[in-house]
């Protein structure tokens, strides 16, 4: 790990983790917004930074992008400290933000082609840069809009163009900040398909931020849940769900009498129940707390009572 951080020249493709973050801290004035965030992203992994607004997702991603200078901690992105990343390093990543409204007078294909040209000097035998403009326009579903002015695109089309620009340099690492904010369900579904396809075919490491658990579950290999500037959970959607649902509520009846108990090992408990009472058991019901219920409870608490209570609430639910 330490070697990966210390290394300052760009690591060759496929060598070492894409991102290593250790004890990352960010402070604005006297307010701490990140308290020692730690995680690693493998090459080719799709990682979601999930959390309510104000949890520190955007700050974290902007530090990784090299757009914001951290207060403390060690960060390595594609083998380089983002605070000292050069243009060669920049050429290996793509960035998609939610607030872009630029280049309204350009036509879709022209802008994509023009911006792609900046990557020509960074083409390598393993990864020829940039991507073919027309193929990319088609891949993001803007074939019919290729000759339209960008100012005439809908919100969803605009964001797909942003993704196309983000990947025109065939990045090894792609950042997506709240990529589907303000989308309708249809646009959201199409966008998810596009991202999944990209992760599969280009072997791009993707880091996305979202406050939507469903989106994180759908897109990410691994979810990092942030609250109050800390990572409170790190794992696949299944692992997170299991952490949350470590306890389950078991309801049953015996001889017409109803029982309910909260247990840590529902399977073992039920096995035991049947072993002891056999045929007498009826109306069996095992209910695990869903990840969604627990996440929603944390989001509500984050907004109502602040990050510390939310973190405490989440930790309590998990243990």
């Amino acid at each position: 790990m330490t070697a990966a951080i210390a290394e300052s020249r760009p690591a060759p493709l496929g060598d070492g983790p894409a991102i290593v973050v250790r004890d990352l801290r960010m402070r604005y004035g006297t307010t701490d917004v990140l308290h020692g965030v730690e995680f690693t992203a493998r090459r080719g992994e799709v990682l979601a930074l999930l959390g309510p607004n104000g949890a520190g997702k955007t700050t974290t991603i902007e530090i990784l992008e090299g757009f914001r200078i951290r207060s403390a901690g060690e960060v390595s992105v594609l083998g380089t400290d983002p605070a000292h990343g050069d243009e060669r390093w920049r050429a290996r990543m793509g960035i998609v933000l939610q607030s872009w409204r630029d280049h309204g007078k350009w036509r879709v294909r022209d802008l994509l082609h023009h911006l792609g040209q900046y990557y020509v000097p960074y083409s390598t035998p393993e990864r020829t840069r940039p991507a073919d403009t027309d193929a990319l326009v088609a891949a993001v579903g803007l074939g019919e809009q290729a000759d339209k002015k960008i100012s005439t695109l809908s919100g969803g089309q605009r964001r797909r163009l942003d993704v196309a620009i983000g990947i025109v340099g065939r990045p090894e690492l792609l950042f997506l900040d709240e990529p589907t904010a303000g989308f309708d369900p249809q646009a959201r579904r199409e966008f998810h398909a596009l991202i999944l396809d990209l992760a599969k075919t280009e072997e791009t490491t993707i880091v996305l931020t979202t406050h939507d658990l469903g989106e994180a579950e759908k897109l990410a290999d691994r979810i990092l849940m942030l609250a109050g500037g800390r990572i409170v959970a790190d794992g696949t959607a299944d692992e997170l769900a299991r952490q949350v649902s470590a306890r389950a509520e078991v309801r049953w009846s015996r001889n017409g009498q109803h029982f309910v108990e909260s247990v840590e090992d529902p399977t073992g408990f039920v096995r035991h129940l049947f072993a002891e009472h056999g045929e007498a058991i009826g109306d069996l019901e095992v209910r695990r707390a869903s990840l969604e219920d627990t996440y929603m409870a944390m989001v509500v608490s984050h907004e109502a009572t602040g990050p510390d209570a939310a973190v405490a609430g989440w930790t309590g639910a998990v243990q």
Partner: protein
Amino acid sequence: MNPVRHAARLGLRRGLAEFRQSMTSAEDIGFQIFFAVAFLAVVFFQRGSTIEGTDMSVAMATLPSLVGLQIAFGGIMGAAGVLTIDRGDGTLLRAKAIPNGMLGYFVSRITSAALGTLMSMLIIFLPGLLLVPELAAVSLWNWLYLLLIAAFGLLATLPAGAIIGSMTKSPNGLFLYVMLPVMLVTGISGIFYPITALPEWVQWLAQVFPVYWLGHAVRWVFLADTGAAAEVAGVWRLHWAAIVLGAWSIAGLAIAPGVLRRMARRESGSVVAERRREAMQRMA
């Protein structure tokens, strides 16, 4: 392939493409035409009168001053206005996210400022040829001098505009910190009103800024033969024009890169989003 030269070439290409776009955009053309019509209206109403003691039309005397102003305006607004707008909509952040994108961006902006200034001069001169017969007699050498002055003028005003633009946070600030000062300086620079009729301290103040000297230099190109009676010292002082404009260029080029770098370093997704939120609130 040298990535830096490559990006500079791309910037040049981008400047040309965006100039072409603005030439086909009704909004931009309308803006240019509005100014041209306003300028020409002034010239039109002066066409009958001549300057006292000469047989030269007042129009011929005004036109060079307007062109001098256009160069200064093109430099300041070409940098400050565009920079403020480009930060607002994320154009600058986009450039930052792309390898050598910032270099390409600045080259493109210098290109489009130069082309825009050239275009606004053409828009004045072409109809001007019809209204002011003396223009047809201007020699080729003098037109080349004019181009040289325009280049020198942009060099003096673009960096200053970029510095102001880096410090201007919103389109509202643009009016307060850019338009208003430029208008005030223009008012005392002998463009619309003879500078010699102003109090002496105002004349001194005006001579600190590029606007007077650009007007002075362009007037020299077109009016050299008719004398410099309306100038501050009563003579042509091209060396002073070169010194003042040169000082602005050197100071601007020394300060602007640092200011621009600091401004660019602060740009990020959340900064652009926050700016947008504030703009929405102002509108509501």
